[in-house]
């Protein structure tokens, strides 16, 4: 078996496939952090890619490990064993060192990212992983490009001919082929973070006030997840710590995440000499990253597939018959089950003491009058109650408010140029504290700032109001308490039970640019 060329052929073939899949899926995932990569969008795959990326990483890592092992044993073909050392061979031997470096960096950084452990410097690891991907592209240009230039189409014969001798090393090839799916199955089965859910008595009282000062919270085991890729957070990342309790009827959670700024200025209106305008820097394209409230989203699903229960479908048009995504990043939708989505919003729902109970379902139909297509992201039904935006129709060139407060003095705290603590003012105008807008009555001075959120009642009623929640911001952290019935009976909600998977994402005054993590967090109910 010395210098087994068939084994080299199999490993090389698997490595080619897995590197290409890893690079293409990885670059599509990297678009979330580096939108300039959209210039290559036509060459990148679209759809649910996280699982494919991790599977190809498994294949490539195993190839690298097998190669390293058999190379040490001298059982696999290598250029370095060749006695002739012409220019081409010497060149490729040197280029191989590039491969060793980028393989080592890519595999180590990739698996450290997958670990989602908060004790590593994730920004550095993300950078190394991205840089090693660029290194791989460089390597491919130097290695495959050079062979292609030297041999032309004969390169394919060079690649495939060793496979003809596969019978001579069938045993080793079988070891490789069996190991890959086994590794994948074991890894998927063991890759969840575990969130232990302690049981408390049904008569024990928890005040949903954003302050986890009840004694049961101290006994709850925290699970901290590193999330990254969000706009405005330091290095785009924030750790999110979750604790959970249940009493047989309801599930309680305490969620805490770092956010240096409390952001409540949600698309405020400002009066200019040409009328009212909405302050925004990306809202027109549904990607505001400046004048927006802080948010937190929790996805819950029976499906524990990587990447938000397999709902994250990347690319500008993952659904061929549906509209392009405005930013080209992708859509959330589920091909099969309903995936629950709880969305806490620092202005729009916090004063209602609710999370917005939403869900991710099958892709919506295209609605001709809707400028923004949201695929599977939908709100639960509500019987009554709502927040509304305080404009009759949004345009970047100017808006007409729906309502102004009865008394101009009501607006005084909002004219502070940020000198006032954000939390001291709600940034919400109750519908009945104002009157319908009339240009004749609008005597507010130029420069007046007006909240954009109108509450028509103090909260939603119905399905959309199933998740009670309240958060407080203090010393660079949001602290959110929430609870929901284990089983609401709604077909747009997921029943909360042992083994259910969830994902969390934080938004720092950003409309859609949220942090993310790949591995599910599995609820483990403890008696």
């Amino acid at each position: 078996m010395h210098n087994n060329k068939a084994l080299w052929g199999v490993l090389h073939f698997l490595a080619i496939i897995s590197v290409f899949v890893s690079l293409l899926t990885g670059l599509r995932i990297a678009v979330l952090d580096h939108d300039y990569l959209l210039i290559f969008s036509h060459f990148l795959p679209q759809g649910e890619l996280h699982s494919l990326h991790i599977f190809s990483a498994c294949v490539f890592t195993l190839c690298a490990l097998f190669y390293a092992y058999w190379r040490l044993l001298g059982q696999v073909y290598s250029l370095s064993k060749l006695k002739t050392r012409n220019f081409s061979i010497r060149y490729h031997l040197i280029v191989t060192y590039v491969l060793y470096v980028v393989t080592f960096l890519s595999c180590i950084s990739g698996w450290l990212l997958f670990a989602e452990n908060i004790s590593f410097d994730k920004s550095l690891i993300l950078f190394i992983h991205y840089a090693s991907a660029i290194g791989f592209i460089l390597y491919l240009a130097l290695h495959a490009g050079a062979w292609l230039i030297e041999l032309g189409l004969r390169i394919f014969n060079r690649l495939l001919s060793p496979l003809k001798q596969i019978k001579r090393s069938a045993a080793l090839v079988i070891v490789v082929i069996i190991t890959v799916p086994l590794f994948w199955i074991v890894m998927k089965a063991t890759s969840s973070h575990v969130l232990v859910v302690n049981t408390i008595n049904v008569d024990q009282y928890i005040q949903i006030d954003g302050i986890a000062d009840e004694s049961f919270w101290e006994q709850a085991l925290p699970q901290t997840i590193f999330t990254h890729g969000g706009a405005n957070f330091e290095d785009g990342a924030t750790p999110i710590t979750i604790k959970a309790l249940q009493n047989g009827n309801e599930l309680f959670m305490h969620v805490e995440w770092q956010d240096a700024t409390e952001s409540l200025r949600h698309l405020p209106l400002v009066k200019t000499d040409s009328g009212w305008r909405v302050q925004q820097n990306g809202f027109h394209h549904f990607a505001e990253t400046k004048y927006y409230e802080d948010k937190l989203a929790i996805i819950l699903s029976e499906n524990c597939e990587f990447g938000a229960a397999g709902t994250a479908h990347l690319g500008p048009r993952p659904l061929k018959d549906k509209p392009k995504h405005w930013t080209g990043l992708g859509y959330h939708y589920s091909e099969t089950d309903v995936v629950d989505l709880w969305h806490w919003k620092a202005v729009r729902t916090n004063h209602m003491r609710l999370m917005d109970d939403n869900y991710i379902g099958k892709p919506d139909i295209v609605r001709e009058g809707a400028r923004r297509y949201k695929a599977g992201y939908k709100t639960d039904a509500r019987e009554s109650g709502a927040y509304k935006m305080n404009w009759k129709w949004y345009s970047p060139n100017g808006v007409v408010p729906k309502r102004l407060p009865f008394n101009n003095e009501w607006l005084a705290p909002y004219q502070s140029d940020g000198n006032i603590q954000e939390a001291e003012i709600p940034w919400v105008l109750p519908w009945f504290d104002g009157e319908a807008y009339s240009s004749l009555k609008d005597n507010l001075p130029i420069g007046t700032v007006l909240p954009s959120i109108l509450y028509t009642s103090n909260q939603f009623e119905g399905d959309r109001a199933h998740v009670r929640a309240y958060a407080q911001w203090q010393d660079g952290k949001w602290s959110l308490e929430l609870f929901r019935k284990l089983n609401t009976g709604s077909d747009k909600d997921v029943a909360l039970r042992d083994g259910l998977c969830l994902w969390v994402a934080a938004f720092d005054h950003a409309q859609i640019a949220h942090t993310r993590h790949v591995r599910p967090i599995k609820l483990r109910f403890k008696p």
Partner: protein
Amino acid sequence: MNWVARGLVIAGTLILAVIFGRYEHSPTPAYEGRYIKLSRVGELMRSWQGPWSCVLDTQTNLVWENKTDDESIHDALWTFSWYQDDKGVKNSGDCYFEPDRCDTSDLIMRMNQEKTCGISNWRLPTSKELSSLIFNIPRTGEAKIANDFFSHTKRGDYWSSDADIPLQGVYAHLKTGAIAIDFIEGKPRAIPYRNAAFVRLVSSNISIHTTDLKKQ
């Protein structure tokens, strides 16, 4: 082919691919759909423009009132008892724009006075006309109608002009009423004239040239 030529072919292919593949991400609205928005004075608007006051249904050539939340006569919260041509029950609905309470003839009179969308022959729709708006795939929990054109539509009963309908069940003692279309289930049902139901007025026999929009 020597190695220089191969290199040039490969480099040229990559450069062409990158140029060809440059990403553009400007979704564009469809202008050829069933419904067209009309401004307060009846100008055609594109489907992503607003605010709009009426909706032209190009399938039926009917123009429909669009409801609002601005406390004007078009506010979607106002309800009306059924009354016209001395038939029905006067002033049993609720609105802010009449000194008394409201009925269907009040809205018809006010919209014809206002010439909403440049039209002055507003009327109650027949149940068949109103049923033509039923859309069975609304957004979750919303009224069964094209929600993005008929904004603020309530999940409730909307009056039609079909009157003198025998009432049944608990309403039988009131003898006759009118047909309302229930936009929760998308079905017609006879209810008493005195009931407070929503109204969406309609106009026909109008000539609006949708080709004008396509030229914009």
